[in-house]
């Protein structure tokens, strides 16, 4: 099980990447900051970066609206 934003429990999948997790969450907003267990993941690495079972994932949407 993966925890997203200290609240949402998402079942882990074999070979899960950051990109796949964002797809699962339908997080389509282009300007995100993703951190796994406190470490920020570079934008261009989302497609390959692995997410492990039990990871604490934060997906912060940098959006504040006007």
């Amino acid at each position, binding site marked *: 099980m993966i925890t997203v*934003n*200290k609240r949402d429990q998402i079942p882990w999948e074999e070979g899960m990447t950051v990109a796949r997790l964002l797809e699962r969450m339908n997080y389509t907003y282009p300007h995100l900051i993703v951190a796994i267990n406190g470490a920020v993941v570079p934008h261009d690495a989302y497609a390959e970066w692995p997410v492990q079972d039990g990871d604490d994932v934060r997906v912060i949407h940098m959006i504040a*609206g006007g």
Partner: protein
Amino acid sequence: MKAVTRNVLAEFDYTVPTIERGYTNQTLYVNVGNGEIKAKPVTEEMKLKFTGGKGFDLWLLWHAVKDTTRWHDPENEIVISTGPCGGITQYPGSGKSLVTTISPTTDIVTDCNTGGHFGPYLKFAGWDAIELQGIAERDVVVVVDAIRGKVTIEEMPEAPKDTHLLGAWLTEVLAEKPEDRYYIATVTSGQAAEHSLLGVLNFSLFDRKRNDLRYKQAARGGPGTVFRHKRILALVVRSRPFDGKTNNPADLARLARVGADMQREVAKWDPVQNRMRNRGTPYLVGIMSDYDLLPVHNHKFGGHPKAHAINGAYWESRFTQDLPDGCWYGCTVACAHAVDGFELKTGPYKGQKVIVDGPEYETAAGVGTNCGIFDGDAILEINFYCDTYGIDTISYGATVAFLMECYEAGILDKEKTEGLELRFGNAEASLELLHRIAAGTPFGKIAGMGVHKLKAYLIEHYGADAQFVHDIGMENKGMEYSMYIAKESLAQQGGYALTNKGPQHDEAWLIFMDQVNNQIPTFEDKAEALHYFPLFRTWFGLCGFCKLPWNDVVDPKNALSDEPHKIPHHVQNYVDIFSAVTGREITKEDIIHMSERVYNFQRVFNIRLGKGLREHDMPPYRALGPVTEEEYLSRQERYDKQLREWLGLDPSTMTLQEKMAAHRKYRYERYEMLMDAVYERRGWTRNGVPTLEKLQELGIDYPEVVEVVKKHL
């Protein structure tokens, strides 16, 4: 220059002063009823306590009106001001105008924040603010002419009424050479503002690349209705060439350093972030639907399969690209896009090819998705006519969506709507209704009252169920809600209803921070956010800034800072700019103090006018949770899960009605707890009244202010 009939009813000669560190140090008073025109000094106290922009507006308005003043009384004013940083060119988003008046829909003060050139040009013409008071006998135009050094109240009987014609006509009348047009700015409304409480003010900007006029809107709360009720047809300023020195900033080098840094940041990051320069605010349409936050069918639902038909990429393809679409010089976030050469299919201007200023996200969602309309051309045509007729697209969209739900619920029928089949998705009916409001037909006038008064009307005249219409009527304090679904964000529920003027999202936009990012999980976190963000965001309107450059383009390094959701690098930019312009060195904490004075002053002003208390901060149930069975069932899994997690109930043993009742009770209780936490954080009583200690701390414990709160303490 076009020769037309101009009867000058009153005139006032003046010398344009040099601007000192962002201030002309005088405001202009114009009474269109008795012809009085005069200059009033700006005191050091005003600058220190109220800064400028909305702060000046509120201070001047407070002293102009009585406790009992209604929107249509002659002593009501429309006050417009830009702020000390308004009109600099060195930083994106530095030319906003702030408008206040007593609103026809809320009966308290409304405030609007608009782009366009008027505010800065008014300052360059010699005035930190303008007050418009009184009611004229016949339509008049107020002209502030810096070149002749004259302010006049004139009759111009040949002038057209609707903005897209009137703005061009006035520019032709007043420009002596072609280049003069660049420095003329108009404030106009339109026919619909004469028959509706939802009237808007259009603020022009001369677009040099298009060689044509464009318009931004001072929209929420009906200032256009007050304008036309005063028989003011237009307000015009004729200014002179200017540049980044015209404000006489204290430190041009510091201003340039910060400006250059930000211009580079926008150039580098906007193309790979929100693409504001290509698609503007409607980039949000598809995204909001993906997150279940896009209003659909009168805020019933948060998404729709057709939403991506009108998403950011779609609008990018409709907007003319590669033009510097800033609404003030120097703005490279440049989100004020337009569809050029759009041929109108309906109405009095059918067949004309026009520039459509928009749509903004709020318009695409308001008159579009919220009404079940997903057709780009329909949205563009409604947008254009709302603008030129002078009606607010958010309030119009919210009102039509409300009428559509009432029609589908059987409260209205064709007999009552002059034959209009107001069902969700019926764009033709919505457009036809708009033309009828402009023409002032009986049903047009009824619809034009807006949601708050419509509810009472439907209950009284058509026997509508009071509970139902109050639940689905998306208004608070009399103002219609703007276009975000707050049902699952307690913080945004407060962000909408714990506001001064009404549920407009300028004060707080916390949905993502709360619902998606889960960055403010406790009541205390939410209360802190509802203390900090409204105050931080209010500050922009004291200075003349637009808040979009603060948060819509951000260097990714921001993620590594403390408190990245506040975007500290940009906050520091604003500290530097304010200090560099005014010569008054401030800190980021000062920003909050400056705003807190104005914010609390506005709260007391609301109390003075009869609202501003806890009972007025209560939202309709549609803003908190599912009103109808259809809504509950559309998210059943989520709502059932919440019953288990929040209330320890077993949904499998409950009827649908029992489940809905449990949600309703819980959501209102939760909201009341939020109110308690927020009021406490703000230094207000449980009834939402600023305490004497708070007023003293802020230095706004003037006798007339204390007199208002004392009755409630």
